[in-house]
């Protein structure tokens, strides 16, 4: 890729990462949530892979690592959803509304679901890129 694209994506990449973490962690307060923030997180890795090549993107996250993270996140999410009724009161318990540290099990499931969405999109992109 040209120097212009490399420079612009080098500037934009940390902001994309930061904004995706903001969207995921504020999923119970502002519009957005796990799915949208996860897609943002995946697209920041995809941007690096498109501009700098596959090797630089594999420095960020390798394919086997994303496989493992997705499996663990899927199991955790299933367990959380099944037992949500019992752990809702004790997880991130806070009486104050409109705070990041509140909302019961919703922020935890937002984070885990966001990680799962991000890794699955990264896996889809990697398996399409590496196809021979």
């Amino acid at each position, binding site marked *: 890729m040209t120097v212009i694209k490399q420079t612009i994506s080098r500037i934009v990449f940390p902001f994309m990462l930061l904004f995706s973490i903001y969207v995921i962690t504020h*999923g*119970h*307060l*502002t*519009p957005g*949530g*796990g799915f949208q923030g996860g897609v943002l997180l995946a697209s920041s890795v995809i941007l690096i892979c498109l501009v700098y090549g596959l090797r630089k993107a594999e420095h960020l996250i390798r394919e086997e690592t994303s496989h493992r993270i*997705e499996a663990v996140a*899927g199991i955790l*999410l*299933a367990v959380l*959803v099944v037992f*949500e009724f019992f752990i*809702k009161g004790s997880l991130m318990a*806070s009486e104050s*509304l*409109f705070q990041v540290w*509140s*909302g*019961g*099990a*919703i922020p935890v*499931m*937002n984070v885990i*679901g966001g990680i*799962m*969405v991000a890794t*699955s999109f990264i*896996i*889809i992109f990697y*398996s*399409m890129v*590496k*196809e021979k």
Partner: protein
Amino acid sequence: MNKPLLLISLTLLAVFVLSVLFVPNFSFFSNKISNHYIYHSLEETKAPNVVGGVVWDYRAYDTLGEETVLFAATLGVYMLFKKLHVRDKK
């Protein structure tokens, strides 16, 4: 012409047409539940974002199914591009 097949398809067609004809008005059933979501979501789920509350609290099983669909789609794309499909061995 296969007679029982024709009978089954005609019965299904009649059922679908009748169910379309007698469908109730929009929000006939769901008006109560959507009003409940709007007015009681903040105190029940402690989440100001009503959409987040509905997606992750009231309908968490639906969201789990969505994630399962995403997982299956990822697995399908991975198998398609890595050529991992089962072949007959000779």
